[in-house]
């Protein structure tokens, strides 16, 4: 490979935060060259965010700690520079797009760095115009962040670092808040911008299948503060490193392995488009598919919630929900999917009476929900917000779970019994004396779900239950939800995560423009190009694999994979 000159050089680098007893990074040796595209992956807590902060200068200038070894950026020791000096070389787009977007409008946000460098106005306007053109946001310069989609915010973020002619663009979980199709466009845009500007790209993501949609030169794998792998995507995918490192393999790789095919580097397995399968391999896949019959999940039939002609509008705006008909069945685990702003969250909020519908009916087991107050409705339908921190208002776990019961006037004894039994169900009992602040994100999520379960709802609705979680936490949360579901509670999830939908939801309801456009199994949705296009989803790589292997019914193949995978994992 033709490598340019090194821009970032770690040598025997270790870092320990002042407040911590152990180092977060150990013996890092890593060089990133001009024009390279590098993916950094690893489970939460592996040190990848710390590595990112070392590269962009937040360490050591904002976060204090002890550095051993050396980190050179453009040949100069980073600790002898400053954040703003380093920023001239390395541009960072943070994961939190609302924090990244500083300006009141797109124009001001792109110009932000230039304003801080005291660039004169005429030059600023010119440089902003250029950057906006590269990322394709020129038509929205006067827009405020509240009027932009996730993808447009991402574009603004990239333009905001491009105005400085950086040599490295670094992205911290760029796909985290985007719907699948927008995520695909975003990663393609990153490639396009890198090719136009010649800048190196560092992407930190645990969804490696989505990032490998573009050609990455290298993958760095991290675990417990160390680099455990540094090589080409093909080399990584043909090893066992991913599974051992707690990261999800691309689905087609897993399927090929299930079919008994050995993944080797010369098969070029880094992308579903590049992977080379021999006729023998294809026969093996077909054989695996037909060896056992594919059982489709038995749909549930007893209606628990019947929604008819539901309409909703924010103040005097046009309708957000344009006549939604939906029968939710008892004991179902349902996913609601669709692009941002299609009305998914609005539907959830309307069911919970957070928003008052302006037309239609919602009947839960014979009772009309539309007459209930928010509090009354919560005894029947529980709502779990995406961010657990926004739901927690007590310091101790017990008090938090007991809050709803206390406010409903239950007596102490009942509350104690109820809370303890729920803590046992939710695996929180052993932590019962802990303050909530000592819990991990996933445990906090459990606390918020537990506090909703305490009210004995028939249905719970979860907004993005696993957003931002690595594979281990994702599995942990989802298996927990599955257990709850099997205990008889109907679960509705709003999600952008196609894996989640495929692996856990037996039914997928697809939203587009305030209406339901599809209601079928997840496997069927993700193999229907028409629905995928309308709802801004992305077809699963298993679909392409099925087509490559000449399987006529891709949706059945996907279903087969899900069934098989479930068995293997349990």
């Amino acid at each position: 490979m033709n490598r340019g000159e090194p821009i970032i050089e770690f040598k025997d680098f270790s870092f320990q935060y002042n407040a911590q007893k152990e180092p977060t990074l150990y013996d890092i040796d890593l060089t990133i060259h001009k024009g390279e595209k590098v993916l950094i992956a690893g489970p939460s807590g592996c040190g990848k965010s710390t590595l990112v902060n070392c590269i962009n200068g937040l360490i050591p200038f904002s976060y204090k700690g002890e550095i051993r070894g050396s980190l050179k950026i453009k040949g100069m020791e980073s600790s002898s520079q400053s954040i703003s000096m380093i920023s001239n070389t390395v541009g960072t787009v943070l994961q939190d797009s609302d924090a990244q977007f500083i300006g009141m409008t797109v124009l001001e946000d792109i110009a932000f760095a230039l304003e801080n460098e005291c660039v004169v106005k005429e030059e600023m306007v010119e440089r902003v115009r250029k950057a906006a053109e590269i990322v394709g946001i020129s038509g929205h310069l006067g827009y405020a962040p509240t009027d932009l989609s996730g993808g447009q915010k991402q574009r603004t973020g990239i333009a905001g670092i491009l105005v400085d002619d950086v040599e490295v663009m670094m992205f911290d979980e760029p796909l985290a808040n985007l719907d699948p199709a927008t995520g695909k466009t975003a990663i393609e845009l990153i490639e396009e911008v890198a090719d136009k500007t010649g800048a190196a790209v560092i992407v930190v993501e645990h969804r490696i299948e989505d990032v490998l949609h573009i050609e990455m030169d290298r993958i760095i794998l991290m675990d417990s503060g160390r680099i455990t792998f540094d090589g080409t995507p093909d080399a990584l995918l043909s090893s066992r490193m991913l599974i051992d490192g707690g990261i999800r393999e691309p689905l087609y790789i897993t399927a090929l392995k299930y079919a008994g095919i050995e993944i080797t580097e010369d098969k070029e397995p880094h992308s579903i488009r590049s992977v080379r399968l021999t006729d023998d391999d294809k026969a093996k896949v077909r054989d695996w598919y037909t060896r056992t019959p594919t059982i489709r999940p038995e749909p549930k039939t007893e209606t628990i919630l019947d929604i008819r002609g539901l309409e909703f509008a924010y103040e005097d705006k046009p309708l957000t929900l344009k006549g939604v008909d939906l029968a939710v069945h008892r004991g179902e685990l349902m996913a609601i999917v669709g692009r941002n702003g299609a009305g998914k969250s609005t539907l959830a909020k309307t069911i919970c009476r957070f928003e008052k519908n302006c037309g239609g009916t919602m009947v839960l087991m014979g009772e009309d929900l539309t007459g209930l107050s928010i509090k009354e409705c919560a005894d029947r339908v529980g709502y779990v917000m995406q961010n657990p921190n926004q739901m927690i208002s007590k310091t101790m776990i017990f008090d938090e779970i007991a809050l709803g019961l206390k406010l409903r006037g239950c007596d102490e004894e009942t509350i104690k019994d109820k809370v303890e039994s729920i803590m046992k169900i939710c695996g929180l009992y052993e932590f019962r004396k802990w303050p909530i602040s000592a819990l991990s994100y996933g445990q906090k999520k459990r606390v918020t779900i537990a506090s909703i379960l305490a009210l004995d709802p028939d249905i719970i609705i979860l907004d993005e239950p696993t957003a931002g979680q690595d594979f281990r936490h994702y599995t942990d949360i989802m298996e927990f939800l599955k257990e709850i579901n099997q205990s008889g509670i109907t679960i509705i999830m709003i999600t952008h995560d196609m894996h989640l939908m495929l692996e856990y939801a037996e039914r997928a309801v697809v939203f587009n423009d305030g209406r339901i456009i599809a209601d079928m199994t997840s496997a069927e949705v993700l193999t229907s190009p028409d629905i995928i296009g309308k709802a801004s989803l992305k077809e699963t790589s298993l679909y392409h694999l099925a087509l490559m292997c000449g399987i006529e019914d891709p949706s059945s193949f996907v279903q087969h994979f899900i069934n098989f995978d479930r068995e293997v994992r349990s």
Partner: protein
Amino acid sequence: MKLLNYIERSSPIHRLNGASKLFCLLTWICSTMITFNTPFLLCATVLGIIAFALSRLKLSEQKGLLYFLLGFMLLNAILIYVFNPERGVELYGTRNLLYTIGGRFTITKEQLLYQFNVILKYLSTIPIILVFIGSTQPSELAASMNRIGIPYSFSYSFALALRYIPDTVSTFIDISRCQQARGIEMSSKESLPKRVKAAALLVLPLILGSVDQIEVITNAMELRKFGTQKRRTWIMSRPFKAGDYITILIGAGMVAFVIAYNVINGSRFWNPFN
């Protein structure tokens, strides 16, 4: 959510630089706050109305705000009268009784003039505030503040507040509904301390979450070099034109007049009773 009621329109006032308008606004407010010179306040009120007309803003666009404002002024006037019907007599040192309603409630010329002044003091600033907000792009405000000498860090705080208020409001609405679902309410059924505690539970996740957000935003700003230079430029700044100098002169003239009047007159009250 639209925070400040900026209305895009082509008018001489819209074309003025935000900095000159801000300077004029501040001097306007200062001078009308200091003085009790009735003719001056009357002039300022008329001038404000003329500026409003020049800005081509419509009264109907400000209706909601205006009714509320007039109601508040009326309430304030009534309160002042009820609490001290002879405040004017104390201030002007003479007593021209017009009518006695009963008991301590008298109507004097002095009280009428005093209360007229208080109303004028508010009335003279209302049109100019409406004009300023309606004709100045929110994005230009911070640049203008910096231009008239406020350090850019303070000015940027103001811009950031405008940027993050809509986010904070929508997060608050989400959180408060979830908390209501759990049963937190602040109705009058409970005792006051309990209600305050309920409010604390309601806002706690919002406030602690915002504190976490501060660190992330700070990082984002430092990574794009905020605060590294002694000054900064603004893409929304505009050059000064002739109109801007006139605007500044008007503002400066008002303050100069008020100060001069106070010194020459020996008091800030215009007193027709002596």
